[in-house]
């Protein structure tokens, strides 16, 4: 079986500053992969590169098809949803309008209504606040909204940039539980960037460690967890 996502020799730069120096990794359909790395290693940039938000060189294949060089609005139509760094909330729109925008490219209106109820089922808080201006939601609520907006696409692959950012520990557990459920029940593949390496390694099947724009270590989460360097730097024990 060909990999769902196959990245080879991915370079990316902001202006003249090159940030990614040839990233290689792959993930299979239905799996959860996590990218670990220190601040500034290039994790956010990698996710941005995958969905066409920064200029890149190298190859990105999704389901065998080249998607590098395509625009974000075309890549999302392939079924890749991005929960961006900073949440990307439409602050002047209501919670529900934000969610509906997640399904903007879908044409199955009836199923979209059902999915709205489905994400409200995951995050009842959002339902309570469905007419509230999204910019006035708390940071954690906006994070839930960002994840929900991505779910509204019914994506094949979700790119999650620090989904636990700003969430209370209890809510983080809940969110990761929901991600696990979505992955198991709906076969949505996920590529997760996390500061909370312990939680991410718990959730994922595979992990890649990125340092200054290069993959320096990869393996199953079991292997990575038992790596001494990772333990010291990212797990803190």
């Amino acid at each position, binding site marked *: 079986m060909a990999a769902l996502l196959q990245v080879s020799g991915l370079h990316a730069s902001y202006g003249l500053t090159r940030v990614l120096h040839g990233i290689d990794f792959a993930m299979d359909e239905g799996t959860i992969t996590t990218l670990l790395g220190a601040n500034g290693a290039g994790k956010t940039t990698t996710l941005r590169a995958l969905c066409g938000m920064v200029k890149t060189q190298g190859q990105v294949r999704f389901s065998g098809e080249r998607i590098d060089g395509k625009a974000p*609005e075309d890549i999302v139509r392939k079924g890749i949803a991005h929960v961006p760094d900073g949440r990307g909330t439409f602050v*002047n*729109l209501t919670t529900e*309008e934000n969610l509906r*925008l997640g399904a*903007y*490219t879908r044409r199955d209106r009836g199923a979209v209504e059902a999915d709205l109820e489905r994400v409200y089922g995951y995050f009842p808080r959002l339902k309570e606040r469905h007419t509230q201006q999204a*910019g006035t939601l708390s940071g954690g609520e906006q994070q839930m909204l960002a994840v929900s907006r991505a779910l509204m696409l019914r994506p094949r692959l979700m790119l999650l940039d620090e989904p636990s950012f700003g969430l209370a520990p209890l809510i983080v557990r809940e969110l990761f539980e929901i991600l696990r459920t979505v992955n198991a029940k709906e076969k949505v593949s996920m590529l997760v960037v996390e500061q909370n390496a312990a939680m991410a390694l718990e959730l994922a099947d595979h992990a890649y460690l990125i340092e200054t724009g290069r993959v320096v270590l990869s393996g199953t989460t079991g292997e990575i967890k038992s790596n001494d360097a990772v333990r010291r730097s990212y797990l803190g024990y």
Partner: protein
Amino acid sequence: MQELLHQVLAGLATGGIYASLALALVMIYQATHLVNFAQGEMAMFATYLAWSLINAGMPYWPAFLLTVVLAFVLGVVIERVIIRPVENAPVLAVVVVFIALLVILNSVTGWIYSYTIKSFPSPFPAEPIFGQYVTSHQGGAIGVTLVVLLLLFLFFRYTPLGLAMRAAAQNPDSARLVGIRVGWMLALGWGLAAAVGGVAGMMVAPIVFLDPNMMGGVLLYAFAAALVGGIDNPAGAVFGGFLVGVLENLLGAFVIGNELKLAVALVLIIGVLVVKPSGFFGKVLVTRV
């Protein structure tokens, strides 16, 4: 008393026209954070197109509708061909492009149609139909304005495309991530603004007559209206339009006379900018930091 009522109603009629044009300004402002100084000339050009159609023998309302469509297309084309290339240029460069557009439209119209003043027909009868305090055209213009405003409101509030346009204007990056073609939304916004401006032009032309400079004063009032209401608030701009129209008429009739009327707009603009820069209904954006 009757005179007062008459002046208020007349003010509402022109106010509706300012409101439409103010709304067109706000639509472009929200998407680009720039004030389209050429909005008035685009409306003027559309009105000349309507005049040509009517003169060629087309009945008023079909000519009206066709003009709205043509204005829309003109707006889209202007965005694609002239505005798009300077998308990422510094603000001043874009302002120069707007002013160039203003001058070009003005002189091209003058060249095609000459600068002599023409009369423009009203679709409403000459005898009063809405009672004695307001001419039929004034009453009709208020009606047309309200219909346009209602249609725009319904479009932006309740249709997926309207929602997408609002999203694209607010947060282009996130909009692209959910699949919205932001560039086209901008072009559509220009088209809609131009169409609304075209309606305003056709409604004001029977009052101010048709000439290439007819929208200069109107644009100034519309700009004042948009600032009074808050340049980022469509409802505020509409309210501002009606307010400026009524104020202009009352002050002109009872206080300062017609000669100084245009100065009212400028005083309002400066006054608002000094006292309340975000306008009276300008969104004090509620975001968490």
